[in-house]
């Protein structure tokens, strides 16, 4: 699966797509492959704040638990209830399904993140 350039990527395998000061955050195809069948997500409440580079929740597959790291900081304005209730869907469509939406405090934060080809390069 290609890593589209309409968004940025973290070394921890999240993606972030910015439009204005709203950022959609999800996990990459590589992340879902590594996790295997996703069965559960623990996500922040709407209104809570996330900090770039810090954990905002966890994602669990049958075999493992991983932390979710925020690519950008800001206020959580929406949590994807459909994904939370049907976490297995993230395995099929990781790049279309955002997990949380964040109103970012500093859109400049994304400049430090990877673009699609840099991220692909990281995976080798």
């Amino acid at each position, binding site marked *: 699966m290609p890593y589209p350039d309409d968004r940025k990527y973290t070394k921890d395998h999240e993606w972030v797509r910015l439009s204005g000061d709203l950022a959609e955050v999800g996990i990459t195809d590589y992340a879902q492959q590594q996790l*295997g*069948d996703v*069965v*559960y997500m*623990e996500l922040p409440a709407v209104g809570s704040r996330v900090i770039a580079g810090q954990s905002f929740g*966890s994602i*669990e*597959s*049958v*075999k493992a*638990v991983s932390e979710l790291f925020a690519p950008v900081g800001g206020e959580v304005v929406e949590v994807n209830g459909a994904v939370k209730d049907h976490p*297995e869907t993230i*395995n099929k469509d990781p790049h279309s399904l955002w997990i949380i939406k964040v109103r970012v405090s500093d859109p400049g934060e994304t400049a430090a993140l990877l673009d699609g080809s840099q991220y692909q390069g990281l995976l080798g």
Partner: protein
Amino acid sequence: MTEPVTTELRKTPLNARHRASKARMVPFAGWEMPIEYAGITSEHMAVRTRAGVFDVSHMGEIEIAGKDAVAAVQRIACSDPSQLKVGQAQYSGLLTPEGTFLDDMIVYRMAPTHFLLVVNAGNIAKNYAWINQQVTTAGDAAAIDSSSRYALIAIQGPASREVLQPLTGVELTDIAPFWFSHGEVASARATIARTGYTGEDGYEIFVPPNMADRVWQAILESGRSADAVPAGLGARDTLRLEASMRLHGADIDESTTVLEAGLGWMIGWTNETFIGRDRLRAQKESGVSRRLVGFEMIDRGIARHGHRVVQGDTPVGVVTSGTQTPYLGKAIGMAYVPVAQSSRGTEIDIDIRGRVAKARVVPMPFYKRG
């Protein structure tokens, strides 16, 4: 001779086959093993509804033979292997004098004075050293570690028999659960046992290592119309947990007794000589203070191995296994809890990475085939 010190992972005879099948390979108990092929959930469901084929060649085989082999096995196995007929097997424990688990195992009676013990991969060397020590005191008997002489392939699931039967002249319907028979599978010399670790009907097939690939391929080919799939250790773990089979190193170990683990049924009290008997007898009289129970999560979340069972801020127990189960579709697990919290329906609190979540004690097994 001393074993060279090496960190290199051991490989089963099917390693190249797994790689060619794009399995995800992981280190497990010193072996490089397939954890999943197409995905744990789909492999788990295949075993519950059709059939799955597992490479479990990492498991250890220790054989005990000699004129006094019965006395030797009676000493190290907490069941009563003297009651086994030739061709019959039983679940058993290799215990410390304290009645705790060095390992769990299946004991197969190959001949009147010849037993085969199938033990966990990570415990082979430890078990073998212990068994050797004990066997010398039992008279004329010897133990050998014959693990490298066997590859072990399991086919598990309701379609197992129809998949395997065309490959063997052994009449599979004649093999009752926990019995075994010798013959050929795909023209390879094989011992076919009706045993497993999934809660489904199925067979475990011992073959010479150089025949493993041939047998593996033949089973998958024969299983094509039944949609049998290769299954990895990930599904093996979720399947055994749904069936509430204990995992050594997680649910049972050298700190837990047979009775605390709820496995009293495996004890052969008619066996007067097994190591650990006195302590278990005493514990049976006095009663246990903690017990391994099954639980289902009430709150959202998945409790995992090592999470604490708490009462307020005080840890009172520990989760030994836990997962979201593919077939039952719930988060379940096993935990040691104080006896006062062990009865069915009791609500317990589990600390999941700093968040306390409620669970309910439920009877085991979680899953029993219909």
